[in-house]
């Protein structure tokens, strides 16, 4: 789908063929970015078995790969991201410890992932070893992996260039103590995800001048306990993050949620359940702005479901 098609689709969905004036005027200078995302796939390489259960026939890497390939054909600028818990949940993992999961993600052309708590399940040395099968980075900003098998094997952030856009991606992982057995996370030091996310996002915005800042998170969407850190509380306490792609709580969000950050700006949160049943998609339309306006806060208009 090219940009023109996308725009006409969105205007149709909005019930009018009249595009907002700025969109027409700016179209020549606009950029269109497609973000595709998964979370908590949990070793679901095959579709769910046909056993009468709710998810039967859904998911599977071969079907997901075909979908992604089609979207790549229709769009120039695509980012494919995963928010962790790639491992654990089917006999594939018991037998092969994540090798086919990683190979499949590489074949699908994932651009980055973060780490979930279950990615520690066969030990950090195993996760580190399975990275030999992938070329994309593992992005975690708040785990200090010094003196662990993951030392030097994860990035705190990565900048992706898509056309004229610079997209900064950072990542935050969940508190491991009390969730992951001590022996599995070893010397990994969990650091405050809010502080680390803000520090990294500040760098990406003000030093690197990224046009969009995405946080991959395995913190979980929201919790009843008010003081527990989640994507919602991270969003509210954040600065300079535009989008949080979440995981851990296996939440199927019907649409991305808007939360106001510390500066009163809008942050989006999205999460697409688990098991590779759903592939999430966000289409961002960027307009060119002056250097002066780049630093000013701006709202984001979330359209009705339009891209499918």
């Amino acid at each position: 789908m090219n940009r023109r098609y996308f725009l006409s689709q969105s205007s149709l969905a909005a019930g009018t063929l009249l595009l907002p004036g700025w969109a027409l005027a700016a179209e020549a200078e606009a950029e269109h970015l497609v973000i595709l995302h998964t979370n908590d796939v949990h070793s679901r390489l095959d579709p769910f078995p046909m056993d009468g259960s709710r998810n039967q026939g859904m998911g599977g890497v071969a079907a997901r790969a075909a979908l992604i390939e089609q979207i790549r054909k229709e769009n120039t600028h695509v980012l494919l991201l995963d928010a962790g818990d790639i491992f654990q949940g089917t006999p594939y993992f018991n037998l092969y410890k994540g090798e086919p999961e990683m190979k499949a993600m590489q074949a699908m052309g994932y651009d980055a992932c973060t780490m979930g708590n279950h990615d520690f399940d066969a030990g950090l040395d195993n996760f580190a070893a399975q990275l030999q099968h992938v070329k994309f980075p593992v992005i975690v900003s708040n785990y200090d992996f010094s003196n662990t098998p993951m030392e030097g094997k994860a990035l705190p952030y990565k900048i992706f260039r898509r056309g004229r856009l610079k997209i900064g991606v950072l990542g935050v992982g969940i508190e491991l103590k009390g969730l992951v057995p001590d022996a599995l996370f070893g010397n990994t030091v969990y650091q405050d995800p809010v502080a680390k996310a803000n520090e990294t996002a500040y760098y990406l915005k003000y030093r690197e001048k990224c046009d969009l800042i995405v946080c991959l998170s395995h913190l979980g969407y929201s919790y009843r306990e008010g003081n527990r850190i989640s994507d919602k509380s991270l969003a509210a306490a954040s600065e300079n993050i535009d989008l949080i792609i979440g995981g851990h709580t296996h939440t199927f969000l019907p649409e991305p949620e808007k939360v106001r950050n510390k500066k009163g700006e809008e942050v989006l949160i999205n999460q697409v359940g688990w098991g590779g049943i759903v592939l999430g998609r966000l289409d961002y339309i960027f307009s060119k702005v002056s250097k002066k306006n780049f630093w000013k806060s701006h709202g984001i208009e979330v359209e009705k479901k339009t891209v499918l």
Partner: protein
Amino acid sequence: MGLRVLYILSAVCVLLGCAGSYYQPGRVAHGRYDVKAGRIDSGVQALLGPYQQAVGGSMEAVVAEIAASLPKSQPDNLLGYFMTDAFLVQAAKVFGQQPDIALMNQGGIRINNLPAGPLKMRQLYELMPFDNQLVIIVLTGEQLQALLNHVAGRGGWAISGGSYQIKNKQAVNVQIGKQPLQSAARYRVALSDYTANGGDDCAMLVGVPQENKGYLQRDALIDYVKQWAAAGKQVPTPAAGRVTLLPQ
């Protein structure tokens, strides 16, 4: 000439926005694709082939027959009761002494339902994918009450060998066997090493001595259902009502 090249270069630069171009996201549209049967990527399918063959061979074997659908729910939880029944029966055999109760942490139950009918090995792996071991700990009634209060605060976990109710995030009317919990008594509790080591924020269990025979919880499930199959019987449906919610 040189100026001309510079001019063209800078014009190209402006067009491509290679220097000093700034963008802001103004609009975002969203969608979700249901990943379902249809077109598949043959390359990825081929990559999976050898793994699929190996997994399929051993995992598609039918090991038992489930009498009635066992759904996961909370707090009253047939799937959880099935698991804790298996742990109670198997722990008695493996440890040579009958535990008083077995508990199963809700987060460790990894599928939503075991449907009635043939049960495949694969389903038991999906139900309990973790290589967690079944361990025995001995708790005083007071310690057990504290553990059950913690568990009640998390929505309630399945139990075998006892029952309790949840009121204001506390465990009340706790029965072990057919008797009310006695705070001075000592109880043998079968649960996972994950929980006994403080998983799911069970910090109160850290340091409590564990009996561990290196017996996986998944193997307990497998051995339990195979015994029913060997006896020519379906895996029975546990009675509901062991863990219930009281109005606040």
